[in-house]
């Protein structure tokens, strides 16, 4: 059975096309310009990559901050529900989901059947988000990917004292001025991000298996730092791009709704 899921986040719009529980095509588009059109374009491109037309897909679900821009049935599946559903699809044994998104971090605790027990979303602050990483990368004149590939032992990390995304920039600049190596600064940023995420997980309890999703999950540096702070390993590989999990969840939720 074919299904489609679309997740309009704060920074990216993600669409997946699924066939019998497998992702057969996807699209990730940065949110630039008018979301209504952008979402349509994203859905269109995913569908055409699958070699299909939208009419072929009867099951369609949407989720995310901008779900109101998704002009399909079942467009508002709720981000928590979608993430939980997608994570259970990605790893049936997942008990803790850590979604590292563009503007917020979400921790979900699941029971053995994949049902949400409780969850926490990050506070109203961009610290530790994908957005934060982008600002930091800009200040360092690196790409987010380059930052993600930098893994530095804690003792070599520069100390980052501010968690504010805006002031982080000025701290980076002053570190550069003080002649601190870019590598240690990146390490310091990853280290403090990892610490913040670990704290959030500990508020709910770090019950394994811990699955990480979302764009920031692709940053090896952040994930390594997170594991160090948490003292537990997290599950890093999933059967689809980390960023797509909520979109997959939306597709599956829509299927659940339609089947019931």
């Amino acid at each position, binding site marked *: 059975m074919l299904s489609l899921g679309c997740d309009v986040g*704060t920074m990216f719009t993600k669409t997946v096309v699924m066939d019998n529980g497998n992702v057969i095509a996807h699209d990730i588009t940065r*949110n630039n*310009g*008018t*979301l*209504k059109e952008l979402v349509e374009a994203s859905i269109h491109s995913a569908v055409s990559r699958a070699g299909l037309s939208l009419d072929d897909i009867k099951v369609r679900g949407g989720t995310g*901050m*901008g779900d109101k*821009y998704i002009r399909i049935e079942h467009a508002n599946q709720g981000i928590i529900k979608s993430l939980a559903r997608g994570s259970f699809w990605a790893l049936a044994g997942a008990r803790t989901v850590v979604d590292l998104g563009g*503007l917020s971090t979400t921790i979900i605790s699941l029971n053995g059947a994949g049902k949400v027990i409780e969850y926490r979303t990050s506070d*109203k*602050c*961009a610290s530790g988000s994908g*957005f*934060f990483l982008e*600002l930091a990368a800009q200040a360092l*004149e690196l790409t987010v990917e380059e930052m993600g590939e930098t893994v530095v032992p804690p003792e070599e990390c520069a100390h980052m004292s501010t968690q*504010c*995304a*805006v*002031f982080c*920039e*000025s701290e980076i*600049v*002053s570190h*550069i*001025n003080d002649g601190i190596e870019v590598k240690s600064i990146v390490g310091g940023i990853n280290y403090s991000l990892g610490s913040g995420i670990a704290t959030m997980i500990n508020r709910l309890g770090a019950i394994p298996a811990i699955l990480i999703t979302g764009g920031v999950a692709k940053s090896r540096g952040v994930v390594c730092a997170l594991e160090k702070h948490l003292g537990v390993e997290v599950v890093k590989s999933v059967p689809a791009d980390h960023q797509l999990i909520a979109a997959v969840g939306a597709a599956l939720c829509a299927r659940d709704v339609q089947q019931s």
Partner: protein
Amino acid sequence: MIFAGCDVGSLTGEAVILEDDLILSSEIIRVRPRPEQTAREVTEKALGKIGKTLADIDYCVSTGYGREKIPFARSSISEISCHGRGAQWACPEVRTIIDIGGQDCKVIRVDKYGYMMDFVMNDKCAAGTGRFLESMAKVLGVGLEDLAPLSLCSKGRVAITKTCTVLSQIEVMYMISDGIERSDIAAGINYAMAERISKLVRRVGVKEGVAITGGVAKNFAVVNAISDVMGIKFVSLGEVDPQIVGALGSALFARERWQKAQQREAGPTGGKAAKSVRT
């Protein structure tokens, strides 16, 4: 005598070259990765305009974030004192200066000699700073300098409620997606900026003769909005570019310090060096 003032901020660097009481030349550039690089480049550019080099400078004072890292500056002074001094030189009636920099907004009160009496700065975040406007312009997809003209076409400004610069960016992103006119958003941004700044200004208490300096002073929409919100009129700085006021102030301090040094060399007069400001 040639005096130089050099202001290395978080977004731009400025230099002013002064001969006695006359501005010979000035320059503004975008910051380079290192403050000394910014300082050298901007000062050399300013000197180049009048066919001079760093060697011709008799005394240079640096200011701004990178002030302590400028090798050719003989001493450094905080940008707060410099803005006060520079603005008061440009317009002697000035008693309050609102300086809106890249990541700071300061309100400075000065006495009739241009000496700083009191100041406040935004403390916690970048709301109400140049950085705020810049990020907003980026989201709107326009240049920083286009925000003001764009807002003129507004038919009804929107309210930007978030204080945090990052969260405001998201708010604006969704406004654009909702199809709200960019001009209305631009007007909202300018107004939000003005409101945040006004909060700070109230803390110092507005005196007569308010001037506005820094890059944002060139955004007439923000300036008008502050006038509106606070019910005040700004005095003009004449021909002085509001963005170079900090550098101008540091050049003036350079002159003062040079004079003091001269007096010391001239012989032990006892007592303190005279505080001559304007000749």
